[in-house]
């Protein structure tokens, strides 16, 4: 990688051969500890740094009313003290050793990320192991952390219209499956989780067999194995968390939701049910999203933002998910454009794709884009770790990351037409409007 040549130490470079070694699937090594925690290790000696990503298979989909937001709250509590490292010590020890960290929670997973200079590897293992084995849930820390999360929730709603309308749409699109719940949680739940809720949740979901750990960087497989055996292996496995029983039934008719805010132009969100990431239609759906909104020449961007003034911006996405999820289109109206007009304009473009498909050039374009995305992923140790973990957890095998350009390549124009027709139907969608406050 890029800083390879920054290193003057010949010894480091000598072991590596040429600087242009591209990562291959066989460079990724895996092992699973007796307690069930899986490890992916990719040695990459280009910079004297490494990272550790721990993907816990717990997110807001594991919640119910009353404990909404608890997965995300744990993402915070995991930094608030364990047996050997009291409150604040996790971050203090890590930073003093040349490390930093962050974490994020989605509907599906909670992911902890540590970035560090290579010699801190053992410290990182000690810190992670202690909080997995012996997290302390100090009531005082819980109280102050509630305030932090309430502030996080509030600042999201204050600064992001997408967040506001997104939560509304999600809550209506799903009527049975817990994907209806906002990851951050309901305000009233945030204020009232009990100590018992927290302890139960930790016991249920933070068992080593419910996680995949990815380490990429200037470390060796042997080092990682030794440290994993020493620090993580002694943590006993508990039973796997209960399966989620609820299955969202097929949507049988359009749903609508409106919300108001003091904004200048309407925001429109259209969300369609689509299958989970492992489904064979994933690649076609993902390319469909690119065809609609990736780049100024994409269908929706060109028609609504570049060639007309209907929208100031438009995007679409489908998240990685364990259960059937949503394909979401989000647009911000231009001046004097109503929400229904914007919605109709989006619809027209979708109908054209359903009816006529796209051109071979367009399809080749989005496939080329996917290949370039893949190269960019491989540019940094961070990109490698994040994507290896994501592919392993959601696609079932990290090798899919390397196969992705080929799997996208296999998608045909017929596939695009088919998935557009199958999923982007009126009956299968929820439309949300975020509208300017009516004049007072």
């Amino acid at each position: 990688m890029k800083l390879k040549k920054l290193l003057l130490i010949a010894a480091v470079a000598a072991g590596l051969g040429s600087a242009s070694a591209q990562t291959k699937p066989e460079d990724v090594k895996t092992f699973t500890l007796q307690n069930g925690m899986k490890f992916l290790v990719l040695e990459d000696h280009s910079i004297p740094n490494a990272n550790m990503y721990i993907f816990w298979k717990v997110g807001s989909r594991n919640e119910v009313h009353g404990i909404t937001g608890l997965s995300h709250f744990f993402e915070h509590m995991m930094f608030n003290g364990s047996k050997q490292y009291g409150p604040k010590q996790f971050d203090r020890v890590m930073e003093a050793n040349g490390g930093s960290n962050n974490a994020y929670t989605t509907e599906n997973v909670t992911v902890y990320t540590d970035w560090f200079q290579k010699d801190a590897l053992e410290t990182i293992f000690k810190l992670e192991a202690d909080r997995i084995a012996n997290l302390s849930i100090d009531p005082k820390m819980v109280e102050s952390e509630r305030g932090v999360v309430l502030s996080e929730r509030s600042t999201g709603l204050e600064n992001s219209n997408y967040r506001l309308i997104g939560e509304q749409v999600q809550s209506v699109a799903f009527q049975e499956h817990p994907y209806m719940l906002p990851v951050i949680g309901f305000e009233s739940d945030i204020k009232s989780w009990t100590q018992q809720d927290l302890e139960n949740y930790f016991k249920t979901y933070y068992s080593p067999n419910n996680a995949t750990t990815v380490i990429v960087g200037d470390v060796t497989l042997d080092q990682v194995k030794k440290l994993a055996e020493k620090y993580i292996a002694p943590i006993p496995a508990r039973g796997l968390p209960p399966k989620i029983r609820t299955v969202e039934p097929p949507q049988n008719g359009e749903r609508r939701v409106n919300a108001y805010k003091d904004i200048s132009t309407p925001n429109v969100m259209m969300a369609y049910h689509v299958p989970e990431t492992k489904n064979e239609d994933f690649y076609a759906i993902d390319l469909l999203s690119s065809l609609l909104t990736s780049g100024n020449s994409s269908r929706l961007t060109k028609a609504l933002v570049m060639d007309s003034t209907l929208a100031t911006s438009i995007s679409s996405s489908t998240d990685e998910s364990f259960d059937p999820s949503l394909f979401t289109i989000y647009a911000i109206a231009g001046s004097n454009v109503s929400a229904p007009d914007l919605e109709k304009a989006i619809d027209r473009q979708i109908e054209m794709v359903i009816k006529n498909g796209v051109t071979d050039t367009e399809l080749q374009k989005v496939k080329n884009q996917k290949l370039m995305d893949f190269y960019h992923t491989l540019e940094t140790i961070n990109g490698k770790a994040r994507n290896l973990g994501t592919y392993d957890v959601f696609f079932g095998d990290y090798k899919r990351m390397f196969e992705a350009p080929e799997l996208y390549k296999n998608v045909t124009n017929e596939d695009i037409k088919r998935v557009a027709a199958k999923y982007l139907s009126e009956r299968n969608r929820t439309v949300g409007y975020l509208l300017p406050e009516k004049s007072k």
Partner: protein
Amino acid sequence: MKNIFIALLALLSVSAVAQSTFKVPKYEKFQLKNGLTIYLMEQHEVPLINVSAVFDAGSINDGDRAGMSMVTSDALLFGTEKYTKPQIEEAIDFVGARLQPFTAKDMAGITASFAVKDQEKLLDIIQQVLVHPVFDKTEFDKYRQRTVVELAQQKESPRAVIGHYYNAFLFGNFPYAIPGDGTKPTVEKMTSDDAMAFYKSNYTTGKGAIAVVGDFKTADMKKKMTDLFGGWKTAGARMVKRVAPNLEFEKSRVLLVDKPDARETTFLIGGKGIDYNSADYVPVMVVNTILGGRFTSWLNDALRVNSGLTYGANSRFTRMKYAGTFAISTFTKNSTTVPAVDMALNVLDSLHKTGLNDEILSSAKAYVKASFPPTYESAGALARLLTDMYVYNFDESFINTFQSKVDGLTTEQSKKIIADYFPKDKLQFVMIGKASEIRDQVKKYGDLTEKQIKADGY
């Protein structure tokens, strides 16, 4: 997410070296006969090429037409002698390349990233965009209309606009006060001819540089760049004498921006910072790491971890060519505005009164050094480093001496750094929030000025 600021810092921060002695990778720098400076650096890990092209065409040159620099750089892509705007976009999208215009206070230009196999096409487009833009009127008018709407939309997010208010409040008559995104009245009046005129006087080879970093052979790329840009004739470089702005304030001032529907107060507190070439940048950055540059920083510890008043608090030095600012940045719900501001001020005060001890300093050094290598890990980052060297007039010694400067800082020296560079009193406050709830409480911090967030400009 655990911390939003850490995520931002990871993208933005310049920090230090880890275990080894570092050098900037080998690169070649030369000037074409027309004065254009070219940097070439080979990086072969992935089959990509990255370009960063910069000119002395930043918003400092906007004059009374705020946004002119941004509009012009965006409009470079609105068609050239050879290609229409849609043709450029289709060509770029087709090969999955990236071509982005950008504007900052002291520079404007484009960055690009593309596959080696597409280099003929992409280099041709880049040459067309930089040398032969036509600023198509129809495309420009659509863009202007959209930009005006976006300016209003931006104000829906305090976080998106507070920096503009802060710069306007601190820099006064100096052109760093100009909001780079423009304002409704200024952008509304702009024409494609204005963009062409701004281009002609500011995109000049005498004050421009192009860095190419990636998977190529230097000799080949040198020939290509010479062929593409050697014949480019522009106006002569303008010589503008600038006097650094005076940021020594005589009193504390508060700018309260009223957002009647606000549920929280978003605020910046600070004053004078350091310019880009300050000899003390490294020690200032190390000390700021302790004050507000990482998760365990004193500000985040006090306002978030100890009290739960906010999701995050930080402090930062923003450096520009002729000056810089310092700001403490955080937000809190309306009702805790004063406790949060007071607490932030106490933390700043403790930096001056108590200072640093060896333990915290050594922790900050380790942190800063370890976060250095990832900063320049990608070829795109290296391309931007090279053009930053050109714009801000520094060289690789900045990187090559970074580690020793970090290591060399003592607690004794840190006292002087704190006294010299961290504002202590006569602080400047910008707060965006619900004025009816906080006005009476925050006027104690200084002379109060009030604006409505929906009013044009900043």
